């Protein structure tokens, strides 16, 4: 069976930690948990995957109708429907990943309280599962994009970069909220409201630029939101090279610096809060 040396040496036990048990175990657990959960949700039942696809598509259909037929926001933008779809799918990822992460540590209470478990795996695996779902949904989105007549450009190759940033941001929020939720149960409600607000503070429904919002002062302010920067850049790289880039919309370096600072501090603070609180989580549950 095991090939241990005859007498393993005494080594200090460090106590609970977010990574507990080494990197190898951390990553295999992370991968296994996300993959199993993903398989379970989307392949366990036929409806599982369909449902995950139907939700953003339904939202898309409603918003498309409202904003092209009633408010006529995007009537002079040829790509508005696919822009809307892409934005909704990306934001759905962010919202689902973060809001299911909030309660994740509490949901996995048994594991936290009764095993020595790398606790960071729990919120991150939720975000990872959501990313698998996102990748699947993006295939459908790209079919739409091509069918709409958008020409592929070399900038499509840059797409992984904003996706990565979105993942990191979601992970930062997930770490922060899942650790806080153990102690403060209203975090879930607060985040639900905040996430809704963020949706409107991100240029998804209303495109920026002359043919869209056409209000530079508001656009400058919007660019403080890291999500807005990511989404605007995706729009330029994937759909409309002529649309204002994040830098153009920001009108100067200041909003972008602010967005960068917010991005970094959310991630650092999230990691710090999780690292700081996770050793005591088992006792608080």
């Amino acid at each position, binding site marked *: *069976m*095991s090939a*241990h040396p005859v*007498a*393993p*040496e*005494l*080594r*200090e*036990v*460090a*106590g*609970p*930690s977010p990574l*507990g*048990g080494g990197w*190898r*175990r951390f990553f*295999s*657990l992370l991968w*296994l*948990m996300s993959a*199993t959960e993903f398989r*379970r949700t989307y392949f*366990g039942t036929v409806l599982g995957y369909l449902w995950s696809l139907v939700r953003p598509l339904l939202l898309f259909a409603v918003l498309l109708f409202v904003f092209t037929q009633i408010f006529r926001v995007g009537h002079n933008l040829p790509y508005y429907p696919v822009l809307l779809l892409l934005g909704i799918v990306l934001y759905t990822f962010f919202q689902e990943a973060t809001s299911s992460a909030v309660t994740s540590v509490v949901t996995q209470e*048994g*594991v*936290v*309280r*009764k*095993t*020595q*478990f790398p606790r960071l795996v729990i919120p991150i695996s939720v975000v990872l599962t959501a990313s698998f779902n996102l990748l699947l949904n993006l295939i459908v989105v790209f079919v739409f994009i091509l069918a709409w007549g958008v020409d592929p450009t070399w900038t499509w190759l840059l797409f992984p970069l904003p996706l990565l940033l979105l993942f990191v941001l979601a992970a930062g929020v997930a770490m922060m909220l899942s650790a*806080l939720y153990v*102690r*403060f*149960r*209203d*975090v879930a409600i*607060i985040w639900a409201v905040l996430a809704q607000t963020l949706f409107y503070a991100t240029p998804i429904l209303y495109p920026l630029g002359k043919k869209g919002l056409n209000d530079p002062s508001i656009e400058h302010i919007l660019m403080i939101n890291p999500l807005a920067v990511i989404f605007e850049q995706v729009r330029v790289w994937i759909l409309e090279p002529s649309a204002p880039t994040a830098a153009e919309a920001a009108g100067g370096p200041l909003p972008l610096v602010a967005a960068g600072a917010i991005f970094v501090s959310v991630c650092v603070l999230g990691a710090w809060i999780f690292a700081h609180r996770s*050793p*005591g989580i*088992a*006792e608080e549950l």
Partner: protein
Amino acid sequence: MSVPAERPLAIQVEDVKKTFRIPTKRVDSLKERAVHPFASRDFRELRALDGVSFEIHQGEFFGIVGRNGSGKSTLLKILASIYKADAGRIRMAGRLAPFIELGVGFNVELTARENVILNGVMMGLTQRETRGRLDAVLEFAELHDFADLKLKNFSSGMLVRLAFSTMMQADADILLIDEVLAVGDAAFQQKCADAFHEMKAAGKTIILVTHEMKTVEEYCHRAMLIDAGEIRQIGDPAEIGRQYLRLNFQPGAQAEGGHAGEGVPAVAEGASLVDAWIEDEHRERASGVEHGEEIRLRAEIELSRDTIGVSASFIVANADGVGLFQFSAPIRGADGSGRVYAGDRVAVSARLANPLAPGRYFVHAGVRQDQGEGDVELFVHGAVDFVVFGGERSGSLLALDHEVEATVAERSRS
């Protein structure tokens, strides 16, 4: 049992302390915290472990016993890196199985196969290693035909079998086990016992936390009695067992002499004691039993919640509060299974030999969960009292039937 004392250390615990801070007024939301930023953050301190030190050698089976709330589970959780110790140092040699309870990481929505793999990885194996052992695990659990069945469709017996064999596959050097031996049917229990003996032979170190003194005496080289966060004694399992029983039935704080008094329900959550009495042979209530005559104890218990696997247990204690004898019986439901429902009335009837010396005695009655922490559903201190009369008054606790001779065997002087 021999203690492999000359072997190298597997676990060294030095002066470990743990205090839980229990807020008297808990602030549960950010809103409250924001509204009352300076609200009193009073808390009560609960000292769960107060400077615990001990050493365990490699290949040793070490039992930890103690009452509920004695700190033994906290100690186990600190050893398993689930809780963080406030002070002290713990050192270990070799790989520790990170579970303290069977089947913890199981996800009922996944199949047996997926769960075994997930659990294996939790225990620090690679996916490949786990896959390699999958067959052996399912074989041991006798669940080969159910590998692709979701756990939610498993019976509880199947679950326990799967959990136990999953734990065995971890091949860890040190195992922490919290009350798991009484699992499955008799055949599987035998299998578990064999597995334990095998592990013992293979030189694994095992820490066993249990209420079952029988288990401790059967498997452990040494045992430790822990009470109120402190180590009472470390030593021979049989001796620890006696100490434990003594401690258990001598309710520390409330043991004031022997006046146990009327039935005072100390704990009553899941059951209540309707009545308890002593009967004579004509089924009449009696207040005394003659020495040597059978003690007939009757009790009626009403359950107040649905549960499974509970036992009615009784302790006979003398006037000094020393527990003399404990006995219990699993409560069987109307259908013969262990499942019982709120509102069920349980009739208990027991007959005991009476070797008791003349004097006054009390019977404490309780209902206890068989599994897990052995949670107490009900404990009535001094539910019945009775007098034993007749026989010799010897000043000792028991008067046993005996044969004794004392004759001069040799003469040195003629």
